[in-house]
């Protein structure tokens, strides 16, 4: 089975994760721009972060045969530093029309402050102007109200719900999101977001239309294999193969594919790992080493 993880912060993950994801069937991933675990203090670090996502991270993924896309935006936490936020807003037009940028994201509310509201709205306008989907981060605290507000503001700014992916849903928010015609994404993330057993029951109850799952794996305790693991659990527990395919692959493609920057042919027509990249040296596959995913089983005690 092929999978797409439409929300994963690979910049924080190791090559072991890339290798494991590829082995588990992940063919494409979307990395939303978010925060790095500690607030940045300079606009230049955002510029380097965005160009890292469209440059080096895209390259790193390609070495493992995975297509890497991203969404670009100013996250809600750091929107609270207004002087910084102003400078970052000026950078966004340089990045949103790059190839492989499949949306503006992840944006929305965290503490639901006035500053967060201001930059959320400005970025909705930007997304509308350039015709890109929006990937919304919904707050951890006061979640249901924050989720509903995110959608109401998006509608107020004239966005079509079919172009908006509302992320980090749970049992309490899913109905509101689906009823309004938005995409409902679920993050399978231990302790704070969804568990995969609960996710299985949500799909049983609501079906597969406009629902997708992701790992949001980052620098916290999280699981980059959350999408394939959840898909397998759903199959085991009697969810149809068609529904599993929709929530772990097709819906993400349909939603973000509206950007015109993500097509199934991007990975179906690529022949495994690009041979011209296989021998790249300096950091990842040192000095002509053959990637282990191609050599199959190996003695894990031996390092050559």
């Amino acid at each position, binding site marked *: 089975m092929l999978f797409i993880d439409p929300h994963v912060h690979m910049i924080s993950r190791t090559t072991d994760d890339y290798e494991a994801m590829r082995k588990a069937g992940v063919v494409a991933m979307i990395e939303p721009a978010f925060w790095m675990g500690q607030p940045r203090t300079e606009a230049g670090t955002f*510029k380097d972060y*965005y*160009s890292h996502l*469209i*440059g*080096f991270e*895209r*390259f790193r993924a390609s070495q493992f045969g995975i297509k890497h896309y991203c969404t670009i935006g100013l996250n809600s936490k750091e929107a609270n530093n207004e002087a910084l936020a102003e400078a970052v807003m000026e*950078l966004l037009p*340089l*990045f949103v*029309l*790059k*190839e*492989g940028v499949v949306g503006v994201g992840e944006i929305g509310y965290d503490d639901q402050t006035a500053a967060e509201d201001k930059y959320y709205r400005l970025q909705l306008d930007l997304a509308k102007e350039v015709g890109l989907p929006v990937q919304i981060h919904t707050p951890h605290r006061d979640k249901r109200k924050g989720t509903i507000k995110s959608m109401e503001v998006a509608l107020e700014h004239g966005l079509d719900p079919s172009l908006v992916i509302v992320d980090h849903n749970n049992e309490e928010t899913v109905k509101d999101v689906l009823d309004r015609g938005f995409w409902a994404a679920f993050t399978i993330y231990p302790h704070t977001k969804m568990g995969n057993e609960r996710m299985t029951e949500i799909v049983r109850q609501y079906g597969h239309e406009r629902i997708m799952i992701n790992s949001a794996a980052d620098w916290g305790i999280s699981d980059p294999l959350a999408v394939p693991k959840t898909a397998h659990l759903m199959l085991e527990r009697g969810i149809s193969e068609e529904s599993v395919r929709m929530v772990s692959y097709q819906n993400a493609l349909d939603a973000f594919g509206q950007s*015109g920057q993500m097509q199934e042919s991007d990975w179906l027509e690529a022949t495994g790992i690009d041979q*011209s*990249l296989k*021998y*790249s*040296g*300096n*950091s*990842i596959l040192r*000095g*002509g080493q053959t990637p282990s995913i191609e050599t199959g089983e190996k003695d894990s005690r031996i390092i*050559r």
Partner: protein
Amino acid sequence: MPAANISDYLLKILLPQLPAPGVTWLQKQLDNLKTEKDFYLAFSVAPRYTGKKPIILSETDQQEAENLRAGFNPQNWTTDQVARALLVRAIPHETPEQYVAILNKVFSTADLSELVTLYASLPLLPYPERHVMRAAEGVRTTMTQVFDAIALNNPYPHDYLPEEAWNQLVLKSIFNVRPLYRIYGLDARRNEALANIAIDYAHERWAAGRTLTPELWRLVGPFISAENIKDIQRLLQSPENIQKEAAALALAESNLPEAKDLLSKFPELKKQLQAGDFNWQTVGEGAYK
């Protein structure tokens, strides 16, 4: 009719291969690039209008490229790359400093394929002597595609990089297992410092029990000495033919009498060499299979 300059040439090979809306879009952009912002926007969205198909070139086309800019051959370029090269050449500016400032900004916000195009375009840009630091920076990249864009089939490094940066480019190509035979002007810029570092690297690889490209010895040939000829002797003991061919080619480029003597001890190899059965090109082509 031959093109008057690089931009005319790029348009001539590109336009017949673009879809009609792509032709209209590109001509409109080139006629209306008035501000920095116009340029950044056009540069980013170019592939949406031009597609990314490989450019198809006749031999005459390739010869014409060579006539306009020695060492330039867009044989492996795609339609979006040619369009972007045209846009970069048309950056609106008044002074060389301003041109470089805009170029730096587009480099610092570029995605993977934009970086590849920018580095591959360096030999076509105005104020070539001002891009030396940029080219040296490109050599430091970890992204294989980006490295290849500057190191392979690109005349800029040969023409402009100072010796230290040039040597880094060649050494990094060896380290990253990139094909040396595709480095433009490699033989012309061989030097003793480079040969010595290459030999040290060969010793390191042998000590580690790792493979080594036979192309490395291409750097050593003219600098074979009484000291390092024992490395060539070792190479001649290799079970692999391609390594022996590399040894023979290196020896043939040396004026040292010991080198000539050593080659004579392998009459069959010497005969094949003189018959032209192999050369550095065939060794390079055979080395990365």
